[in-house]
C-alpha cells in the first residue's frame, strides 16, 4: 500500500484533470442540441468524483516519485483513463458493451484509430468530438511520454534521445523538468493543430469536420467522423493537406520546436531521422504507385499516385485514415504499407512502431557485424548524426526490437489459435502494436474491428497498449525484481 498510494495520488490528479476535458463535448452537445448531452453530464460527474476520491485517499502517503514508480504510473494512466473515457459511450449506448467501448477508447488514447463503431455519420456530434478529442489528448500524452518519461525510465534505448532535449534532466527524480518540456512541446502541438484546422476548413471541410480531422491527423490517431473515412470527401485538396500534416506529426516535435525557436530549417537538417522518414515515404509512394498502376488497378498513373500516396502516408505514419479500400490492391502493396508502419514514425512524434531511429541503428549494427566478420579485431562504432552510440544503448535497442518481433509473433499465434485467419490476425497485430489502425482482410479499411470476438478484442486492446508503452514499460511489471525491495 505504501508503495502504491503515492502513485494513486498522482493518478487521482490526472483523472481529475481529465474529467474537465469532458466539458468540451458537453458544451458541443448543449450547443448542437444533440441526444448525448445526458451522457456527458453523468460521465463528467463520475470521473470528477472518482479522481477527487483517489487524490484524497492517496494524499496521506504523498512523496516524491521515484523512477521505478514511473512504470506503474504510466501503465495505470494508460489503462485508467480509457476506462473513464468509456462512460459517455456506455451511458449513451449501453448495448455496446464494456469490451467494445474499452477497445474504442484505448484505441483513441493510444492514437491507434481502430474502431468497432459503424454508423459514425449518424452519431451525435458530441460523441464524435469526444472520440477525436481522445485521439488528440492521447497525442499530448505520447509526446510527454516519448520525449520526457520513457528516456528517463530508460526504455528500449530511449536514453539516446536525452541529449536532444532542450534542458538537462536529472536522472533520479521524475517530475522536475518534465512539466517545462511538456508545456513547450504542447504549445507546438496545439499551434500545428490550429493551422491544420484552418487548412482543412480552407480545403472545404465544415468547421466541425475540420476540427475532428485535425485532432486525428496531428495525433496520428486516424479516427474519422465518417464510415468511409477521408474517402467521404473525395477531394484531392483535403488529401494533400492531410498528407502534409501527417508527415509533420510523424517528425520529432522537439525538432519542430527547435526550428520554431531558431526561425530556421537547420534543425530538420540536423535531425538524423527526418531524411529517413521523408526518403522512405517518397520512394515507397513512387514505387507502390508504379506497382499498383502496372497491376492495372487504376488506369492512369496520376490516379494511382493520388490514392497510393494518401493511403500509404496514412498507414506508414501510423495515422490510419483511408480514402479507398486498399485491401483490394495486389497484396504486396498493403503488406509493404504495414511494413512501413513499423519503422517510419520518428522517435519524438505521435506515431508508433519501432521508430525510425531504432530502425536506422539496427541496420547500422547489422552492417557493423558484417564488417566485424572480416576484421574481428577492429573497433567499429555505430554512429548516429556524427556521434558514436554507446554499446549499451545499441544493446538495449536490439533487445527492444527482438522483444517487438517476439510480441508480434506471439500475439499473431494467439489470434490464430482463437480462430482468425492468418492475414487478418497478422495484420491486426501489426496495425495495433504500431498504433496504425486498420489492418487487412476482416479488419481491413473497408470494414472494422467489430467482427472480432470478445477475446480477440481484448487481446488487441492489450497489443495497442503494449505498442504505445514501448513493451518494456509493461513487461517490467511482470518481473519479480520489480516488486521486490
Amino acid at each position, binding site marked *: 500500500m505504501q508503495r502504491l498510494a503515492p502513485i494513486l495520488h498522482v493518478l487521482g490528479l490526472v483523472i481529475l484533470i481529465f474529467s474537465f476535458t469532458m466539458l468540451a463535448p458537453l458544451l458541443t452537445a448543449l450547443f448542437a442540441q444533440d441526444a448525448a448531452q445526458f451522457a456527458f453530464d453523468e460521465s463528467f460527474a463520475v470521473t470528477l468524483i472518482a479522481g477527487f476520491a483517489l487524490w484524497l485517499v492517496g494524499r496521506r502517503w504523498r512523496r516524491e516519485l521515484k523512477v521505478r514508480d514511473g512504470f506503474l504510473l504510466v501503465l495505470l494512466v494508460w489503462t485508467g483513463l480509457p476506462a473513464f473515457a468509456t462512460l459517455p459511450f456506455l451511458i449513451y449506448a449501453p448495448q455496446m458493451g464494456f469490451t467494445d467501448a474499452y477497445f474504442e477508447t484505448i484505441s483513441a488514447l493510444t492514437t491507434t484509430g481502430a474502431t468497432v463503431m459503424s454508423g459514425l455519420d449518424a452519431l451525435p456530434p458530441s460523441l464524435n468530438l469526444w472520440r477525436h478529442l481522445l485521439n488528440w489528448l492521447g497525442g499530448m500524452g505520447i509526446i510527454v511520454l516519448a520525449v520526457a518519461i520513457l528516456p528517463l525510465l530508460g526504455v528500449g534505448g530511449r536514453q539516446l534521445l536525452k541529449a536532444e532535449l532542450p534542458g538537462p534532466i536529472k536522472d533520479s527524480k521524475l517530475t522536475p523538468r518534465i512539466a517545462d518540456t511538456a508545456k513547450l512541446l504542447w504549445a507546438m502541438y496545439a499551434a500545428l493543430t490550429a493551422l491544420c484546422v484552418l487548412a482543412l476548413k480552407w480545403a472545404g471541410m465544415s468547421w466541425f469536420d475540420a476540427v475532428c480531422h485535425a485532432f486525428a491527423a496531428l495525433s496520428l490517431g486516424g479516427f474519422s467522423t465518417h464510415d468511409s473515412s477521408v474517402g467521404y470527401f473525395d477531394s484531392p485538396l483535403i488529401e494533400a493537406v492531410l498528407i502534409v500534416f501527417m508527415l509533420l506529426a510523424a517528425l520529432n516535435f522537439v525538432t519542430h520546436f527547435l526550428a520554431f525557436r531558431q526561425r530556421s530549417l537547420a534543425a530538420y537538417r540536423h535531425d538524423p531521422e527526418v531524411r529517413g522518414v521523408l526518403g522512405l515515404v517518397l520512394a515507397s509512394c513512387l514505387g507502390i504507385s508504379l506497382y499498383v498502376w502496372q497491376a492495372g488497378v487504376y488506369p492512369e498513373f496520376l490516379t494511382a499516385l493520388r490514392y497510393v500516396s494518401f493511403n500509404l502516408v496514412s498507414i506508414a505514419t501510423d495515422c490510419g485514415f483511408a480514402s479507398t479500400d486498399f485491401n483490394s490492391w495486389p497484396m*504486396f502493396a498493403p503488406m509493404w504499407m504495414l511494413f512501413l508502419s513499423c519503422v517510419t514514425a520518428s522517435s519524438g512524434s505521435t506515431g508508433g512502431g519501432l521508430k525510425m531511429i531504432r530502425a536506422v541503428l539496427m541496420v547500422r549494427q547489422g552492417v557493423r*557485424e*558484417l564488417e566485424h566478420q572480416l576484421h574481428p579485431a577492429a573497433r567499429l562504432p555505430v554512429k548516429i548524426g556524427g556521434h558514436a552510440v554507446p554499446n549499451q544503448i545499441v544493446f*538495449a535497442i536490439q533487445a527492444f526490437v*527482438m522483444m517487438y*518481433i517476439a510480441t508480434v509473433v506471439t500475439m499473431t*499465434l494467439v489470434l*490464430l*489459435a482463437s480462430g482468425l485467419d492468418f492475414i487478418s490476425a497478422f495484420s491486426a497485430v501489426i496495425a495495433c502494436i504500431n498504433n496504425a489502425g486498420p489492418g487487412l482482410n476482416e479488419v481491413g479499411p473497408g470494414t472494422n474491428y467489430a467482427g472480432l470476438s470478445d477475446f480477440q478484442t481484448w487481446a488487441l486492446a492489450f497489443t495497442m497498449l503494449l505498442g504505445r508503452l514501448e513493451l518494456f514499460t509493461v513487461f517490467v511489471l511482470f518481473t519479480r525484481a520489480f516488486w521486490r525491495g
Partner: protein
Amino acid sequence: MSQILPVVHILSKVLMLFSAAFLLPLAISLGLADGAYRVYDEAIVATFVSGVVLWLFSRRGKRELQTRDGFLLVVMIWAILPLYSAIPLLAYLPDLSFTDAYFEAVSGLTATGATVLSGLDSLPPSINVWRTEMHWIGGMGVIVLVVAVLPMLGVGGRQLFKAETPTPMKDSKLTPRMAETAKGLWLVYAIITVFCILALWAGGMSWVDALVHAFSVMSLGGMSSHDASLGYFDSATLEIIVMVFALIAGISFSTHFMAFRMRNLQAYRFDTEIRWTFGVLGASILGLTAYLLYKGFYLDFPEALRFASFHTISVALTLGFSTTDYNAWPFFAPLFMLFLSSFIAGSGSTGGGIKMLRAVLLYKQVYRELIKLVHPSAAVHTKLGAQSVPNKITYAVLAFLFIYVASIITLSFILAASGLDVFTAFTAVVAMVNNTGPGLGQVGPTSTYAVLTDFQIWVCSFAMLLGRLEFFTLLVVLTPVFWRK
C-alpha cells in the same frame, strides 16, 4: 585473382572427392538394374574432370588459407556442388529445367527437403538414393561447418561453441585441427546412420527405402522415395523410429561425440540446449494434441497424439516428413509448427533455423534488459549453464537474429511482389531459411515447389543457401568490403 586461386585449389580437391559420391547410386543402379546407371557415369566423369582441370589451373596459387578465404570457400562449395549434383537429375529427366534441377540439388545438399519432383514412386530407386544421399553428404558438411568452421570464422556468435569442440583451436589458420574434429564427428554420424538403417529395415521398410529414409532423417533433410512421404507406409512403428532418430539428429553432434568417447551419458546432462529442446517440444506436442482434439479435427486422443507428435517433431526439427496433409489442420497448428522450426534444433545438429542456444540467449538478454530497467546501475551477467557469456557474443547473436528476421521479411516481400500470395510466400521463405522443406498454402506438404515460377525458384534456392550458411557467411561475400584489399 590471387585471392581466389588458393580457394579454387581446395575446391578442386573437394570436387574430385565429391565425384566418388556417385558410386553409391551407381552401384545400386547396377545391382537393381533400374536402367539409370549411365547418368552416374556421366556425372562421375564430368565432376572428376572439372576437378582435375581446376586443380591444374590453380596449382600455382597454393598457400595457407586465411580466415577471409574461409568465407569464400564455404560459399563456393555450397553453391557449386549442387551444379554437379544436378547432373544425374538433368540427364535422367530431360524435361527438368536447369532451374528446377539446381533447386532440387540445393535442397538436397542443404538438407532442406523441398522438392519440385512428383511421381517419386516411379523414379528409379538409384535416383531416389542419390537425392537423399545429397542430404546425407550435406549433413556431414553442416556438422563440420557449424562445429568447426563457423566458430572459427566467428559467425553470429558461434565463437561461443568453440569451447564445446573436443580440442582447442588456433584462431588465425583454418586447417590445423579441423580434420581431426571432423573425422570424430563423422564417425559418430555414420554409426548412428547405420543404426537408423537397421531400425527402419526392422520396422518393415525395404533395404532401399530404409537407406533412403535413414539418409533423410539423420541429416534432417526430408526427401522421400514416395510422393506421400512417410504416409505411404502408414505404420506407427516406423513413425516412432523416425521420431527417435530425428530427435537424436536434432542434438549437437559434439555432445554425441563426447558421450561416445566417454562411454557414458553425462555429456547430455551438461548440454544446456537438450533440456530446452525437449521441454519446448514436449509442451508443444501436448498443446497441439489438445488443440486438435478441441477443434474436433481428430476424435480420439491416441490418433491426435500420433499425428501431432510426428508432425511437430518432423517440422520443428526441420526434417519435413509428413504422414498427412497438415495444411488442412486449423491454421494455428501448422503455423505454430513452422514457428518452432525456426529455433528448436540444437546448435551442432544437422537441423536449421537460429538454433536453440541463440533463442535461449535472446530470452536471457531480454530478461536482463528488464532487470536493468529496475536496477539501472546493476551489472547483470547473461549466464548459460555455469558460464557467463561475454557481451561481444550476445551482441553477435542479436545481430544474427536481426539479419535472420530482416532476411525473412525481405525475401517474403520479393516473393509477394513476384505474384505469390502472401501466406505462401511467407511460409515458403520460413521453410527455406530454416531448411525445413514444406511450407503451407500452395507449397504445403501435399504439393511441391513445382508451382513456382523460375524467378521464385531461384529466390528459394538462394534462401536455402542463406539459411544453411548462417546468413553472415553468404552476405559477407556479397559485400564490396570483402573484395577490397
